[in-house]
């Protein structure tokens, strides 16, 4: 178990994290937050690649000192935009990265097949692969390490719906033995798979619980149609959670709070609604 107690991180005058406390156990944990909320900073600390400015991190009850080798050995970080040499083949790079970590390279072949990169594709230079395929190379690396903690930063960027499905299916399989922290600002990505949600807002942890609890905290949600001024007013108030253009100067809006008119229909809140409501009130 990884314990994070009152962790803060400061870069010069900027505070990236403050007073963050939670425990991590096997399962899928969604880490939500806006851009700049501190998600990547927290992942870097959990990966043993950065050190907190204050607070304590413990692995299996043992607080970590300055040396973070234990954390690096236990965790694998897949960054949001990993730099993959375009001239090197996927297989060669994956073997290198696992060899650098002193890990077995045997899982690579099976995972390349599983993620649709088997056969000749794995031997092609990474620069000749599409963006989605390159993202899958990163996922193969993360899963091939078989470490007890996986830290995935926006892992579905560039994946088509079928690849997302394949990814979430494998994620669920991997989560039986590992702790997976899945950082994203696309709430729908984790709606069906996360056991637990952490929400960061301006460096503070403002929610730690199950998706169901987060949804239950949502205010009433309504759907209505209106013109551009209605959509703009809702957007300005921070109550808008979705908007779809349905005709000339006609919009279908999804919003939090009170019904605007008799025509507005109350609907079941989603995780996205609840997340927007939470971060709106925190802001």
């Amino acid at each position, binding site marked *: 178990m990884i314990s994070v107690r009152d962790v803060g991180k400061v870069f010069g005058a900027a505070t990236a994290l403050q007073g963050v406390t939670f425990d991590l156990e096997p399962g899928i944990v969604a880490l939500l937050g806006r851009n700049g909320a501190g998600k990547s900073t927290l992942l*870097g600390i959990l990966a043993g690649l950065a050190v907190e400015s204050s607070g304590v991190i413990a692995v299996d009850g043992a607080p970590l000192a300055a040396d973070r080798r234990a954390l690096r050995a236990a965790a*694998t970080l897949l960054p949001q935009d990993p730099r993959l040499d375009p001239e090197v083949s996927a297989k060669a790079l994956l073997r*290198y990265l696992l060899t650098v970590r002193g890990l077995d390279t045997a899982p690579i072949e099976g995972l390349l097949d599983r993620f649709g990169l088997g056969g000749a594709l794995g031997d092609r230079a990474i620069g000749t692969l599409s963006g989605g395929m390159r993202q899958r190379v990163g996922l193969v690396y993360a899963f091939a390490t078989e470490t007890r903690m996986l830290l995935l930063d926006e892992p579905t960027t560039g994946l088509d719906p079928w690849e997302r499905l394949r990814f979430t299916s494998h994620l669920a399989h991997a989560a039986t033995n590992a702790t997976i922290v899945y950082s994203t600002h696309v709430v729908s990505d984790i709606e069906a798979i996360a056991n637990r949600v952490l929400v960061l807002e301006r460096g503070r942890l403002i929610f730690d619980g199950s998706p169901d609890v987060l949804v239950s905290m949502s205010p009433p949600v309504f759907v209505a149609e209106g013109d551009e001024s209605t959509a703009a007013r809702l957007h300005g108030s921070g109550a808008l959670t979705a908007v779809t253009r349905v005709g000339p100067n006609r919009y279908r809006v999804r919003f939090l709070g009170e019904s605007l008119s008799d025509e507005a229909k109350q609907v079941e809140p989603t995780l996205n609604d609840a997340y927007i409501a939470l971060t709106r009130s925190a802001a």
Partner: protein
Amino acid sequence: MLGHVTIRHQVLREGVAVRTFRPGALALPLAAFPLAIGWSTGTYGQPPVGVTSFQLGAHWVVSWLIPVTSACVLSFGMARFGADRRLVAAGSTDPRSRWWRDRGGLIAIFAIVTALAAFSQSTTADEPYLSLLVPSLGGLVVAVAACHVLVARFDPGPGVAAGAAGCITTAVVVLPYLTGGPSLLVIDPTLADWMRHVPGRSHPISAGLLLWTSVAAAAITAARLLPRDVSRLRWITKEAGDHD
């Protein structure tokens, strides 16, 4: 071609292949080519009595030009290139130590090229091989140390890395001769004497050579130990573009 040699080296040693050097950096020596030709052909310089301009030029080439050019080429070629540092930093070996393992073959190639250049200058200028080889390799040690400390410890972009490594190496292998500073600071004492119009040759292993190689070793050690753990390197989790 050098990139391919590096890849082959990695394949042979670990059964894996990664590129550790930006091949475009090999174009940088072209900028120094006119100077190398000028010095090698005895075009420039006023040697003391009994010393030819070819011999003086040969010392300039091996003691100044090769180390400074090597520093710029190595730093430009290695800075922010290769596998993502956040992935490599998770390895069982500290990335600053790993730097040597991944780039050892390339540095050995530079040492061989330096030795060949010294041999070539020795032949054309009729200058003893060792009096050219020792200062050129000493200068290369300084260049490699500057490159390592900058790239592996501070991780600047390629342009900044090349400029900074070039400046540091120039300060060590060029300035002491131009300023007429104490002979303790010069790696090639023969060249220092000749620039003061004093003929004759000093022993190639000089106090300056020992001093600067010791400083280089100390800098490499300090870059590895300060800070001790990779998590304290502030740049490690910040990934910028490959270019300045």
